[in-house]
């Protein structure tokens, strides 16, 4: 009997401590967000110049740059409303997502909006569903999602849309009819083309090459791989290239390492590995460089992760690689969110708005869905890697 009373008392104190713990966590979480944000934005400001420089070079190719400057004036003043703008990343603990989130935050806060950034506990659509559900409860104005799965989020996003929340995607898309617009870092075919070209260049036009991808269900990875495959079939230029295997490293360093080593051993004539994933490319780069292999590497990678491995000589495994600026991608999503919420765009193809210092963008109809293209992938090579490795 006494024992039971005691256990209840203990349980009660436990509740109390949980309550206290949560209470304090909640209290500290709110103020903590602001100084953190301030700190984040300070260095971001410093690099803003560099960013815009990059954006400029990047945007140089985009044909619609000129047309947008006209619309810039009208869109700018409208983007000063309140509201809460949410970003759902792929998962916690990923620096690419962190950079993207900081860009998003910067853009929204500059316009006076409140930012909610949610990192799901794991890189699964299930975890994202919970997070989006919670955001619906909170009644946010818009949700920008980096989808972990093309279709799994359909139901929850439809529900959010029905609740009057503007939905957009960035980085990795979901089913087109569940979101208004997709902030695409670069067109799928554009990335496919760029990577194919790099493979062509590094192989010298002929020979064996392989792809090291992330997980088998990653939407954007699969889209890029498909784009590369169809390009090889359609363009006779690549006829002498032989894609020997698509290996999956599951975005785990250990498995990626195993897979890279297996590729090297299974295909002695391998010339190039293309890894369109930030984890995979870093793991593969380390394997190749440690083994002093003659196989060259390219793909998509974070400069900060890859600085060790980029170089023209034989001591470095990766001559050059590509990526877009995640901060800018976040910013673009941030501005797009604001524009959608304040009604300056509806998400229809042809809508034009100004994304702050990024300049003006137009919503395009690509492959039957509405997208905003950030710009072509940016090339990182020995000449610029030192400049970028500390940025993201």
């Amino acid at each position, binding site marked *: 009997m006494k024992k039971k009373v005691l256990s209840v008392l203990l349980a009660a104190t436990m509740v109390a401590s949980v309550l206290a713990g949560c209470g304090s966590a909640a209290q500290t979480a709110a103020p903590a967000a602001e100084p953190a944000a301030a700190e984040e934005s300070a260095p971001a400001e410093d690099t803003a110049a560099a960013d815009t420089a990059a954006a400029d070079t990047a945007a140089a190719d985009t044909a619609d740059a000129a047309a947008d400057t006209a619309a810039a004036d009208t869109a700018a003043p409208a983007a000063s409303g309140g509201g809460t703008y949410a970003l759902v990343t792929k998962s916690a*603990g990923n620096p690419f997502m962190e950079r993207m989130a900081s860009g998003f935050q910067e853009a929204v806060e500059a316009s006076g909006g409140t930012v909610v950034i949610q990192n799901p506990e794991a890189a699964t659509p299930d975890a994202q569903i919970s997070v989006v559900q919670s955001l619906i409860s909170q009644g946010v104005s818009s949700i920008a999602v980096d989808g972990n799965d093309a279709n799994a989020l359909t139901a929850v996003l439809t529900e959010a849309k029905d609740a009057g929340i503007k939905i957009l995607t960035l980085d990795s898309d979901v089913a087109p009819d569940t979101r208004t617009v997709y902030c695409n870092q670069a067109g799928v075919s554009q990335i496919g083309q760029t990577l194919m070209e790099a493979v062509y260049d590094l192989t010298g036009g002929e020979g064996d090459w392989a792809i090291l991808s992330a997980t088998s269900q990653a939407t954007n990875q699969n889209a890029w791989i498909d784009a590369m495959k169809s390009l090889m079939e359609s363009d006779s230029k690549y006829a002498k290239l032989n894609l020997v295997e698509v290996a999956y490293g599951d975005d*785990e360093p250990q498995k990626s390492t195993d897979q890279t080593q297996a590729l090297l051993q299974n295909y002695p004539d391998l010339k190039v590995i293309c890894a369109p994933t930030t984890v995979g490319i870093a793991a593969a780069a380390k394997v190749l460089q440690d*083994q002093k292999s003659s196989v060259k590497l390219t793909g998509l990678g974070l400069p900060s992760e890859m600085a060790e491995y980029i170089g023209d000589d034989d001591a470095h495994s990766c001559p050059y690689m590509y990526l877009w600026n995640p901060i800018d991608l976040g910013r673009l999503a941030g501005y797009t969110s604001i524009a959608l919420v304040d009604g300056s765009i509806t998400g229809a193809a042809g809508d034009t708005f100004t994304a702050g210092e990024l300049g003006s963008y137009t919503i395009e109809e690509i492959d039957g869905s509405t997208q905003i293209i950030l710009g072509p992938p940016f090339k990182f090579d020995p000449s610029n890697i030192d400049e970028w490795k500390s940025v993201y």
Partner: protein
Amino acid sequence: MKKKSIGQFLSGSREASLVIVLAVLLIVVGIINPSFLSFTNIRQIFLNNTLTFLMALGMLCVMLTAGIDISITSTLAFAGMSIGLMQKYNILHNTFLLFIIGALIGVVCGFLNGLIIAKGNVAPIICTMGFMYIWRGMAYVISNNNWASGMDVAGFSDFGKDGAPGPYIILIVAYVLFFVIMKWTRFGRRIYAVGSNLEAAKVSGINVDSTLISVYTIMGLLAGLAGVLSVSIYASAQPNMQYGKEMDVIAACVIGGVSMSGGRGSVTGTFLGALIIGIISKALPMVNIPNFWQNLIKGVIILAVVILNVVTQRTMERQNLLRREM
């Protein structure tokens, strides 16, 4: 003395049957892809599975006491992330000190496990499940969504570079040390005694609680070291590193003949078990098994090996009974 039949020899010695499984595996894989048996490849099997090899030793100790620890990869991530961030933010770059710090973090994590399990009388799987969530969460929290990347850990990662002797030396030292401790020291035998018969251990004056605490502390130490090694070998630290790999470690031990009910298992067996796990994960991509089939085959092999062991044990026991004269 009667001569033992081959069957008796095999069932009598778990290690012997493992060697045969291993030999069969190697021959099959070697025939399909001869380059598998190259020196480089064999070397890489050890390098890529250093963490499994290392942590399996701790798991051996834990399982000998009839316990289990599923928090190890969370401890690994917490320790690894900690020392990764120390380098990222330029707090410390001394390889030796980083190893010490990582190991210490592991020791603290393991000690907490041991304390709660021994003194609080909590089932090992539950206690370590709680810490599995806690340390993994802490790894994420301290990372603040950052990784320590190749650039951050530049000098440090030379230790675990492909071709560098560091990880092999650690493995060899650890295995020799454990081989000696588990067989030739009083401490090692106490671990066996506690798992073999807890009540008898108490009666014969063995301090059961302190044995349990030290066993989990050792496990923590090895998990911490594995965290440091992981950062060094893969030249990066992410909060989700080695997620779910604790099951590989447990599987390695079980295949190696370590009994989950305690008291039975050897360092040699553990080594062979870990080697089988390592060979499977290394060999599957190399024998042209399509990517999607690899997990299925890995699971089937693991299950088949443990079931095979049960079946041979049963057959041998039955034959022994039939041989008994009446």
